[in-house]
């Protein structure tokens, strides 16, 4: 597709990689696929979401569980019914990866989360099969029997359609995860008609694998919300020797690099920073070999970038209306980063710029992007993507571009780094058409 010859350095690196893999090239690439698919889908079932990956993971389960346990201290459970990587996150501050409704991608609200957990509790107490009606009754009973729900302002009843819709969304997530298996009926009808019913089979092994933390939430009696999160992630048996502290640091760094887009140095404490500076080449080489991600080391932080595109759910650049707008806004925000580092950009300014982009590009985009008021929801989508990729930080006053946004900045045209495509001797087409 591109007519640029590969640079000699790249070829040399590829050759070295091939030498390393030469003892078993097939296994190396299979392992890489397995690691990436586990990072992408921490819960794998034999038939969904990726049957090939499930087979690969089962074939190499010893190596994989050793690797994850050693480097990231993540527990890999492989059984005949499911494969689960308990991907405990490095920090609990990330609010960008909430649960989404499987069909339309809506983010879950607090109420839906509550319904989801209560449904899981009801399934745990129940049998191998359950009907939607009985599940709903059990949920209503649980909510009514715990005054804490009413105190928190959560009410739910089977009579209102919007409540039923929340419930159905929670059930759809259960279906998507593989906890429930529809036997007969359709839950969409339940939103409209309170009396329609659906029969489900319960996959109890999957139910047993859902919870990640090592500590049991019901045994933790902690009032504050943030403290609860911290307690969930804490390791109960952590010794205090220098070796153990170093290992804890390394594990935290590896978890961050594997699961999150960018590791910024200004988020780390000095001890971690020193350790990372010393150990960076080894850590990055090990992670890059195992996952196939390309390390990007810069002054402000480290990122592992996805070349194949199978290790991430959000991507930039992306095609389509939102993707194009994201790209344009990213370049524009990067310019702001270059000119005024550290200054937040207000939401109004973003909306204004979005409107300008819509004016310029709407003939490439979907119809509904040209409607009035589109810049509000479009810019919201874009900001959510950018925040999810750790490229901006959202504040009440606006957004603050983060250093990694510099990747998408436009360069001046006389800058040698601006045109990475050098003209080729044998190019018969103009350099613009790098498409088919």
């Amino acid at each position: 597709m591109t007519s640029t010859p590969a640079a000699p350095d790249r070829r040399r690196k590829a050759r070295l990689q091939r030498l390393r893999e030469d003892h078993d090239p097939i296994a190396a690439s299979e392992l890489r696929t397995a690691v990436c698919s586990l990072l992408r889908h921490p819960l794998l079932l034999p038939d969904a979401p990726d049957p090939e990956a499930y087979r690969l993971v089962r074939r190499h389960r010893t190596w994989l569980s050793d690797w994850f346990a050693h480097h990231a201290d993540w527990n890999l459970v492989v059984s005949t019914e499911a494969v689960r990587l308990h991907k405990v996150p490095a920090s609990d501050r990330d609010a960008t990866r909430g649960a989404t409704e499987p069909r339309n991608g809506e983010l879950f609200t607090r109420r839906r989360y509550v319904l989801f957990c209560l449904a899981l509790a009801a399934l745990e107490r129940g049998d191998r099969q359950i009907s939607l009606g009985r599940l709903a009754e059990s949920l209503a009973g649980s909510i009514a029997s715990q005054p804490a729900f009413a105190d928190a302002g959560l009410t739910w009843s089977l009579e209102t359609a919007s409540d039923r819709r929340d419930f159905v969304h929670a059930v759809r997530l259960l279906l998507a995860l593989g906890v429930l298996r529809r036997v007969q009926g359709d839950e969409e009808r339940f939103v409209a008609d309170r009396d329609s019913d659906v029969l489900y089979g319960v996959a109890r092994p999957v139910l047993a694998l859902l919870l990640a933390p090592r500590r049991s939430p019901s045994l933790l009696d902690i009032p504050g919300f943030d403290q609860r999160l911290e307690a969930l992630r804490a390791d109960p048996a952590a010794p205090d020797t220098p070796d153990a502290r170093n290992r804890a640091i390394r594990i935290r760094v590896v978890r961050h690099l594997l699961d999150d887009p960018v590791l910024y140095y200004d988020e780390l404490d000095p001890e971690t920073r020193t350790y990372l500076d010393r150990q960076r080449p080894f850590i990055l080489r090990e992670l890059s070999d195992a996952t196939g991600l390309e390390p990007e080391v810069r002054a402000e932080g480290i990122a592992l970038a996805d070349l194949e595109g199978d290790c991430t759910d959000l991507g930039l650049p992306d095609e389509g209306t939102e993707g194009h707008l994201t790209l344009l806004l990213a370049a524009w925000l990067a310019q702001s980063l270059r000119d005024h580092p550290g200054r937040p950009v207000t939401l109004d300014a973003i909306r204004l710029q979005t409107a300008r982009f819509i004016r310029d590009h709407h003939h490439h985009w979907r119809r509904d992007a040209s409607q009035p008021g589109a810049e509000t929801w479009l810019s919201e989508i874009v900001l959510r993507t950018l925040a999810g990729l750790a490229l901006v930080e959202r504040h009440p006053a606006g957004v603050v571009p983060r250093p990694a946004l510099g990747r998408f900045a436009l360069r001046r045209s006389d800058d040698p780094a601006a045109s990475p495509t050098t003209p080729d001797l044998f190019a018969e087409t103009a350099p613009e058409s790098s498409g088919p």
Partner: protein
Amino acid sequence: MRAQVAVTESYAVFAHLNVEKTPLYRAVLEAFVAARRQFAIALRPVEIAERIPRPAGAPEAPLTEVENALRQLKVWGNLDDSPDTAEAATLEEFYRDRRLYQLSAAGEAAETALAFFYESLHRPGELQTTALRDILELLDAIPPLLSRSPPDDAKLHLTLSSLTNRFEELTDRAQSFMRGLQRTVDLYGISVEAFLGYKERLIEYLEKFIGDLVVATNRTAEAISRVESARLDTLFEALARRELADALDPSPDLLAATLHRWRDRWLGLRRWFIGEPGHPSQAELLRARARSAIPALLTAVSHLHDRRTSRADRAADFTALALWFASAPDDAAAHRLWRTAFALTPARHLRVNEETLNARARADEDARTRWLDAAPMFISPRLRRTGRTTMRGAPPPTVDRSAEKARLRAIADRQALELVRARDELLRRGRRRLADLGPLSRDEFRLFLDLVARALARPAPPQAPLEGLSVDGSLRVRLEPVPDGEWVTLETEQGDFRGRDHWVTIESTLDPAP
């Protein structure tokens, strides 16, 4: 001879078991049973009221209540009453309708049934090794008794009756033990201590009993065969005779029935220890069941272990999480809790492409370069301009090239025709000297050159004839050098071809050799 009891409404004796005043009724009936053990048959209400157990310090049950209960029990048929002929001690007693009560036949049968029910339910099942020993002894005692003539009916009957009884006990106990075993290992809620205690007892029992059963089975089987080798029919007849000695009217049918019954019992005994092909003996089955109890035990262990290492109550965990979600300050906090608690979210990374990597490899970057200064992410200009990597819009229509294709086909056909013509021409020449071969047209010359080249390419001694085949193998050329030949010229359409003189023979390989 037993009195014939009317079979109608006979279950009313059990009606007292499921009503409001069941405890009172049970107390009354048990008082009757206890009194009977002391050989007191008929009781007055007053005496019953005294015998009903009550907690220390509580007053006696009021007499009227007791009397009502007794009357109701009579209606149901548990009790019989008869007039009380003793003298009244007080005026009240005199005016009261005094009756004496005793257990009716049906009532007594009901009590026996209930007593058996309680005993079976609550009796801990066990495997008995003493039963095995007794059985063996009894079996050993039979042959000598049989060998005496005439056989001692009474002793034989006694021996075999005890044998049958021991057998029934053994079977009962083994059955209830097996039942209890299955139920217990099914209990997932068992606590660790209870489980350990049970495990110890079970293992002890199994070791003792199974070991003894194996030994006993062999010896018992031998004893049984010894008895059978003696006169078995004599045994049965003696037994039948003894049993019917008390009968009022032994008919041949009754005799046959008794014989049949004893034969069945003996067969049962036999089948317990000696199996037939296709029907393993009861002892075998018992052994197999006891053996399979051990893996079931191990499964219970693993379940206990699972429960201990995983969360003791996952439902409570989910409920606690629901409460945490409900008390989250906002949706963003809820998302954070979702990720920490469930960790089902996919990883997220920035993307990169080959062009960017190549650019980076060429640029001079190190770990201190800022992102703004480093080689940027390569975005194709089309993507940057339109948001797509491919051209949008309808694909261009496929051009109809059929005319050009037809023309090309015509050209190809013509060329093939010319080639065939050239070939035929060359073949027509036959054997000629080089100069006489011409003039050659362009195609003929090309064909000729091809043949000559292939002939010359073959290694051959000088002055020897050269042979070669065409590319498709259909033509063969033979070049015989003319001795002292001169350089001659062959005319062709494209020019003159000079070479040393040869005799040139071109023939087809497809023709049969002349």
